[in-house]
Structures are given as C-alpha cells and as structure tokens.
C-alpha cells in the first residue's frame, strides 16, 4: 500500500529524528561542550548520531568507532591524569593512620605463628591502591544524579555542578537503557564498557567532565522516548495522543527553564 507524504515523513523522514534532536540539543551539557571546544562538541554530536544509527538500524558502525575513538582521545587529553597509586597529602595521612589502626594478625599452627600482613595488603599494596582509586573514579561518573540533578544531593566541594540533562529525561533514560538488547547492539555494549573502563582508570579530574558518557545517556534517553511514544501511538484517541505529547513538551520546556535558572542565578 503506497504511503502518503505525511506518513513518509513521519516514518522515515526528519520527524522520526525528532526525539533524537530534542535530546541531543535540548540539554545544557552539549552547549557547554560546544562553548568549551567546538571540535569536541562536533565529535560528541557525531558520536551520538552514529551511536543512534547503530542502535536503530545496526548501521554506521565504522564511523561510530572512528568518532568514538576521537571522543575518547579528547576525554583522555582533557583529563588531569594521575598515577593510579597516587595519594594526595590528606590521603597519605589517612593511610598512615589506618596502617596504625590495624591490629597484628597471626595464624597459629601448633607452636608456629604465621604473621599475616593485613595492614599492608589492605592499605598499601599497589593493587589495592589501584582498586580504591578506580572505585573513587567510578563513583564520580556512575551517578545518575550527576547528569540529571547537578549531582544533588551529593554536590562536590569546589566544583560548579549543573544539570547536564533535564531531569524529565531520567525515566526515559532508565527505560531506554534497560530495554536495550545488548546482544543485538553489541557495539553499544563494547563502547560503553570501554568508556567506563577508561574513566575508571583516568578519572574525570582537572575540570574535564565525563563527556564520553554523553552519547550513551542521550541515546538511551532517545530509545526510552521512542518506547514510550510507541505506547502512546497505540492510543485510539488522536486528541489524547496530541495532548500527551503537548504536555510532555511543555513540561520539558519548563524544566529546561527551571534548571537553566538554577545554574545561572
């Protein structure tokens, strides 16, 4: 059955990219990235676009990998990287105190005693310091509150937090992420894992934000929006469909204004 012009636009054309465009440009983070560095902004946009293409139709994988590697390179270059075993002065003091807090631990076998250096193992070994550092680095980036609520209620001292994405997208992000088929979208899974691993190692210190996470949040949110749209489009009443979408857009705009005012007032 031939499709009319309107449905063609809706099914294949620009209109089907509306959620993508809304999420991609309807947030403060992308504009902040652009204002910092246009090149990084463009890379982020293209990475997001090709990630979306890859999730939607399993296409553009080579371009995706290409742009993503550039994005990861920018992430790497803009981060103040410290050795994983590095401790600042405060951490050194804490480490010393904790080394002294440990009691001596021994295993007695008959008349023989084997001393176990638990304090050294748990406080000073390079492997354990790397583990603690990676835990700390991951804590900084694996928080939905960082991206949707300006890190509220866990604001960090000395860092100007801001709402990277409007919080109305949070439920869509969750639905979109959980609804992803990682077996089918293996590229998404591998790149996500690689990004998180990189951030665990290099952290996001020195003013660099976890920009390489941007495409994943954006695309998961878009998928969530599409999932919900799929549900809404099944509603029989067209008026109800239009009302629901209008209310969503209205709330979206209100929240954009709200968060913009929080950040600039």
């Amino acid at each position: 059955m031939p499709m009319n012009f309107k449905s063609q636009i809706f099914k294949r054309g620009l209109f089907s990219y509306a959620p993508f465009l809304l999420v991609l440009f309807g947030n403060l983070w992308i504009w902040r990235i652009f204002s910092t560095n246009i090149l990084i902004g463009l890379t982020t946009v293209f990475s997001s676009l090709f990630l979306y293409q890859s999730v939607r139709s399993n296409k553009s994988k080579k371009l995706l990998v290409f742009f993503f590697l550039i994005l990861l390179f920018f992430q790497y270059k803009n981060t103040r990287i410290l050795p994983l075993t590095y401790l600042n002065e405060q951490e050194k003091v804490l480490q010393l105190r904790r080394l002294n807090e440990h009691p001596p631990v021994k295993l007695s076998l008959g008349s023989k005693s084997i001393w176990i250096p638990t304090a050294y193992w748990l406080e000073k070994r390079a492997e354990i310091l790397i583990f603690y550092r990676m835990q700390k680095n991951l804590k900084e980036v694996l928080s939905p509150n960082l991206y949707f609520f300006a890190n509220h209620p866990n604001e960090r001292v000395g860092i100007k937090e801001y709402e990277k994405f409007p919080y109305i997208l949070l439920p869509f992000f969750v639905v979109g992420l959980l609804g992803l088929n990682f077996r089918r979208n293996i590229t998404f899974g591998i790149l996500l894992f690689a990004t998180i691993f990189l951030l665990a190692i290099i952290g996001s210190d020195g003013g660099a934000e976890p920009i390489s996470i941007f495409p994943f949040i954006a695309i998961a949110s878009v998928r969530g929006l599409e999932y919900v749209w799929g549900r809404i489009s099944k509603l029989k009443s067209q008026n109800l469909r239009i009302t629901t979408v209008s209310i969503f857009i209205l709330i979206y705009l209100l929240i954009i204004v709200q968060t913009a005012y929080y950040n600039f007032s």
Partner: protein
Amino acid sequence: MKKYIFKVLFLLLLTLVGLIFYFYKLDSLPKSLFVDEALHGYSAYSILETGKDEYGKAFPMVFRLYGSYNEPLYIYLTTLPIKLWGLDIFSVRFMAALFGFANVFVIYLFLKKFQISTFGSLFFSITPWVVFQSRIGYEVSLALFLFSLGCFLLWQSLSNGKWLIAAFLVLSLSTYAAYAERFIVPLLIILFILFFKNIMVVKSNIKYLKLSLAGLFITQIPHILLFTTPAFFPKSGEIASLAIQLQAAKLAGVFPKPLAIALSFIREFLSQFTNYFSPATLFLANDIHLPAIPPFYQWMIVAYLFGLFVLWKDKTKNRSKFIMLLALVTPIPAALTKDPFSAHRALPIVLPLTLIISVGIDRLLKLRLLKKTNWDLIVKSALVILTFLVSVAFFWRSYFVFFPQEKAKERGFGYDRLAEFIKTNASDHFVIDQARLQIPYIELAFFLQVPPSQFQSSIDQNIKEHYYEGLPFNPNFIFANIETRQIDWESDIYRNQILVGDSLAISSEQAKEHFLTKVLEIKDPLGEILFQGYKTDPVQKCQNTRNKSAFCMPASTF
C-alpha cells in the same frame, strides 16, 4: 538426596555466618553506646521496673525520646533481654541482632519461592548496611524483619489468598516498629491491590481481602488515636522544605510561586529518590555509615545491573512487578527528607535492592563460563568462595578495625568510664556541660542504672500530663548527684563540685583562673580528649579574688 544434603549444608552455613556476623562481640563492638541505644535501653528498663517510661507515662503507645516520638515495639521487646541479663549493652542490642539474623532466613525463603539461587541470602547476611543496622540497639532491624516477612507473606498470597490476612497483620505490626514503615505500609497495600487486582480482587480472594483490611484497621487503632496529635508526625521537621524553598526562590522571577514550588519539590524529591538507586551511592561511596566501605559491596554493582536488566525483560511477570512495586514504594519516606542518604530511615529499601541483586546473582551463576559442566561448576564455586572471602575481608577492615576507632566519638564513647568515675565519687556533685555533648543524661542514667522511679520523680510532671502533645524538650536534667546543663561560669565555680565537659568546655586558662583541679580525662581510641573533669575550689577562688563575687557570701554556699 544430593540436593537435600546441599540444602542442609547451605542452611548450616547461613546459620554459622549469621551467628558470627550478628552476635560476635555484640556487647563490645562497638564498645560505645550510641545515644539512641541508651534511650531505648533505659526506656525498656524503666518499663520493666515500673511499667512507666522515663517521664512516668504508663505503657505509652509511642515513646517520647528527647522530644521526638519513636515507635514502641522495640522498647517493649527489649524488656525481655533486660529481664534475662540485666541492663547492659548486649541486652539493648540483642533484639536488633536477633531479628537481623532471622531476616537472613526470610530472604532465603523469598529466593526459594522465586525459584532462583539462594546465594543471594548468604551475601545479604554479610551486607555492610544490614549488619551495621542489626548490631546497634534500635528499631530499624526489627522493622526490616517484620517488613520483609510481611512482604514475603504478601507474595505468598498471590498463590493462596489466605496468606493475605497474615501478611496484613505482620505489615501492620511493622508500623509499630519504625517510623518509615508507618508510611510505606499503607502505600504498599494500596498499590499491591491495584497492581495485582486481577488476582486479589476476585471472588475466591475477596473474603480474605475484606478480613485482612478489617484486621489492619483494628490493629491500627492506636495510630488512628494518635493521628491528630503531634506524636504522629514527630519528624515533620525532617522534610526537605528549606531546600525546596531555596530552590523555589531562585525561580521567583520566572514562574508563579505555586509552580516554582511544585517544580522545586519534584526536583528535590526525584533527586533524593534517584540517589537511593544510584550505583555510585550504593556500591561505590564509602563512609555513608561505616568507614571505608559502601552500603553494599563493590562487586554487587554487576549483580545489581544484571538484576535490573532481567527484571525489565520479565516486566510482565509477577515477580518483576512485585519487586518493582517494592522498589517504587520503599524509598518514599526517606526521599521526602533532607538527608542525602539516610541509612537508618531508608533501610526498607534494602529488601527490593537485595531481591534485585539476588536475581542478578542468579543470572550470573547461570552464565556458562566453560564448556565442560564440571569445570564450569568448579570455576563458579571458586569465584563465589573468593567473592565471599574478599567481601568478609573488606567488612572486617571497616567494621572491626576502623569503625571502633574512627567513629568512637560520635557513637558515645567514654560514657561508661565517666559513669564509673561518678560512681566512685558518689559524694561529689557533678555538672555535665552539654554544649556539644549528645544528650548526656540518658547515657549516664543508663550506665549508672539510676532507679527509674527516682528518675521519673525528677522530671517535669507536666510532660506526663500532655505526653502526646509534643511539648518542647528541655535537655537540662537533675538526677542523683548529676546536673546536665551548660556550665554557668558566674556561679558554678563557687560551689564544691566537679565540672565535666568536652575538650573545648574548659580551657587550661579557665582552670588556672578559677582554681580548678583536673581530676578526669577520657580519650577516644585515636587519642582525642572526649571528657575532662575539673574539681572546683570555691574557698581558694574567693580568697584569691579581689572583686569578690556575690556567690562567695555566705560561706555556707560552698
């Protein structure tokens, strides 16, 4: 037969691990008694000895504890161990540990009924958040046990409606154990009926539903009676209203006030709600309540994410719907308050989180690592054992090594020694400066085992008459040879007595100026001074002061 043996062995392991984690050194780890524990312990002691609480109120429906109100069940149950072993730290913590331990088996039953691996219950039994709350003598561990049991019975009622009556009764009982459950349970029951109306609201179950609701109503009569009093909403001040107002003020020029407040409230509530599910907070943020360890072990993040994916994939199944319902409801009271992460108030959320993690563990264990079944089993068993041992090592480091030393001060360390000093100097009068000390009167009443009838007679009798009306709390107490109040430098130095305070209460210059002699110093395990006591010398003070104070006359005031 093999399966049966494995089951028995697993239950034995669960019992052994539970006994160690919940009861080992319960009386001395932590060595200090937190102020809330002292309040619960002394109230139970008072009820046991006189049938009245510290204010002289006979068998109250909720207990007035330093001006707030607490649910009564834990205090009434604690009378039993106090009767058996006397008023000491072990007795106060016993019920919390017992119900924490029992909850491990409720989780086991849950996982059995879900037909998934029961390893989740083993890891639940060593979860830092759970063990910590089960080893301190207050109500949340008991409340979590009752809530978990109630939810388990609720789950059972989906296959047999008869369980609904027991479920509602146990859930109703949990509302007398902790404040958060009072708000969670009604919401849960309403949403449970709505979520599963095609099972619950059918002819075969409707009579059980009616009976359950009737039972619920009857058992809630004490709460209904309290509903109009301030005792029902004692924690209304905890609501994050200030944060909302501050956010709304920023929007003043853009939106009308009601819209600004509504948007600010939504943002505040959602951010708090999300924080209780954030991987960063749950699995990566140390020091939320224990030093150097997150509420759940770091590795559990993998199981958590797997669990979430499995639940979403099976979202139409009852199991997923049930867990999602719990996850939706349990953080609500905590998310309405201003604390960034209230480990105490948000404890009910541990139930859905544990179920999600257990679903994830089950899925992880089903992953095929090696082609040969035997090798696959061996490798997985080794991984489970290794994970368990590493978790135990991290817990030991935090709870057994750091916690008793680093958190001693905030956990009421030293009051037992202060009480001992007061006991050995019974002829002296003591003024305990409470400018920075946390409600010292109850710690001292606890350790000195002040007879409750004597304590009750020293309290403002007006409070007993208007018990549920939320009269303001006066932290100044006079009982035995003790006064708890701020030091009055005008008059206290002219009376023969011992002034006690923290390291900032009395400086060495003040001691020199007022002829005070240091008679007591109590330090925490890290060497910081917690209490110092100075004996006054009014004769010297009056003799050596040019401008004599009015308190120097007559000499009898010495």
